[in-house]
């Protein structure tokens, strides 16, 4: 396999976050500035050196607002990635490409919001849904029939997946229990020291059948930032580099946001498969070379589907792969060791990238005993997808 041109050229040198809460008590703009400063401090890089930002299109705090507030004198690179959590890892790809191409030297990625005390994604369509454009036209075919939230929109996939492969609500629940177990040992997690049982999961109220409340991630206030520089520079900084070995985006056939219902198999995720193929080619390894993973867990069924699409197990076999303990800290593939978005907090997947960095540094609060050389971090589904492979320096 041949490696992509930018594979290994850039690294995540700093991570920084605010607390993850249900009511931050301060502006989203302040959260963004706080987490950016924390990440730069972690990287040992002066704030005035930042010359690039890469963000979500959904980010409410534009790069120029943060640059102005922090007195960053100039930016030579700034980009935005659509599709919410699906695109979570793509700003890191943008940053790596910019650094590898010499367009920017210090690129910061951040996601900061009051997603619990302000607009809640689980409450209904976001404010931009009411802008009548081709971008929102897909809502014509789902919203007027009651499918208003992400949980409601992916329920068809989960229901059909259970029917086809014999998976049960308990199989989804095991992901929730695992995440809360990991979160219970992570002081940064909202659900620190609050594990749950499978019985708790089963007893939690229905949201959108087959999804119970405890199949759904949290809604959180908070900010998370990442600092990307060249791997060469990262070697001279305080923390071991988390080298960006691969980074990819994917859109599949007849893709619609959250509702690609015209595909033959609605329970398959071709955009995830497309990302996987690119990652393996870029990094020069396959799923067997991944030591731990942070899989986007807005809703538990997507963790099972992603395990399959990334090739960690066969199609329809994720329930057994999970039940056999493979996702535990001492298992074959420790998953969501920070507690995931179910347990730690929902920072639209960017807090998961920070956990990927900690796993490479060896500093997760649930650090596996085995050597961790390659970590997969993924964005959300079923929407346009993104993911990265982080590696130790070699």
């Amino acid at each position, binding site marked *: 396999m041949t490696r992509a041109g930018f594979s290994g050229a850039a690294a995540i040198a700093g991570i920084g976050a605010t607390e993850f809460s249900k009511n931050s008590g301060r502006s989203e703009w302040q959260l963004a500035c706080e987490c950016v400063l924390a990440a730069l401090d972690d990287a040992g890089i002066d704030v005035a050196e930042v010359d690039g930002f890469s963000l979500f299109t959904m980010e409410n705090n534009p790069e120029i607002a943060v640059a102005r507030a922090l007195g960053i004198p100039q930016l030579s690179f700034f980009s935005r990635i659509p599709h919410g959590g699906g695109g979570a890892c793509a700003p890191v790809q943008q940053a790596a490409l910019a650094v590898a191409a010499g367009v920017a030297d210090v690129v910061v990625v951040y996601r900061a919001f009051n997603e619990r005390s302000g607009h809640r994604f689980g409450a209904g369509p976001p404010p931009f849904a009411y802008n*009548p454009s081709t971008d929102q036209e897909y809502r*014509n075919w789902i919203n007027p029939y*009651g*499918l208003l939230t992400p949980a409601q929109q992916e329920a068809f996939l989960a229901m059909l997946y259970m029917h086809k492969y014999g998976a049960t609500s308990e199989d989804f629940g095991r992901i929730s229990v695992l995440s809360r177990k990991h979160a219970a040992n992570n002081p940064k997690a909202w659900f620190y020291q609050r594990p749950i049982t499978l019985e708790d999961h089963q007893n939690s109220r229905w949201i*959108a059948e087959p999804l119970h409340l405890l199949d759904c991630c949290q809604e959180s206030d908070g900010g998370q930032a990442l600092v990307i520089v060249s791997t060469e520079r990262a070697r001279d900084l305080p923390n071991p580099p988390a080298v960006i070995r691969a980074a990819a985006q994917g859109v599949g056939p007849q893709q619609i946001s959250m509702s690609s*219902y015209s595909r033959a198999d609605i329970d398959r995720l071709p955009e995830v498969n497309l990302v996987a193929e690119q990652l393996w080619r870029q990094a020069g390894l396959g799923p067997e070379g991944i030591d731990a993973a942070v899989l986007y867990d807005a809703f538990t069924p997507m963790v099972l589907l992603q395990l399959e699409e990334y090739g960690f197990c066969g199609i329809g076999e994720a329930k057994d792969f999970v039940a056999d303990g493979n996702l535990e800290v001492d298992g074959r593939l420790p998953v969501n060791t920070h507690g995931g978005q179910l347990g730690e907090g929902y920072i639209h997947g960017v807090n998961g990238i920070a956990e990927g960095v900690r796993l490479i540094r060896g500093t997760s609060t649930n650090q596996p005993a085995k050597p961790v050389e390659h970590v997969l971090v993924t964005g959300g589904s079923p929407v346009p997808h993104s993911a990265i492979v982080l590696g130790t320096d070699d």
Partner: protein
Amino acid sequence: MNEETVVRTAVPRLVVTQDNEFWFRAAREGRLEIQRCADCHVLRHPPAPVCPECRSFDWDTVESSRRCTLHSYTVLHYPRDDAFDYPLTVGLVDLEEGIRLVADIAGVDRDELEFGMELEVGFTEHAHGEILPQLRRPRGSRS
């Protein structure tokens, strides 16, 4: 509507464009129309300006028999919107013509839902004010 009957709904207003206006107009008249490529005759839904098979911009429509089978479904409990009654059953169906459609299901109990069951597309004015498809048991079938 007077003040007392105003429904506060989060359902966005329809985004009606030159590409999909035919569909909503037909729905208001109680017909289910499906967009068809005028060149290669492949059906498509949701509507779009061009055929993804042959890239022709020419299209016409065919009227659906409205007969369908249940491909998947969900029962919604939370959050609740004023335009619907909960628990709300929503189905994804395979129309006889070979395309998929989403609509809420009326008159079928939760326990009676089955993958592959026969349903029919009817039309009703939803509480948010739009006349749109609603799934129900086929006419003449036992309920």
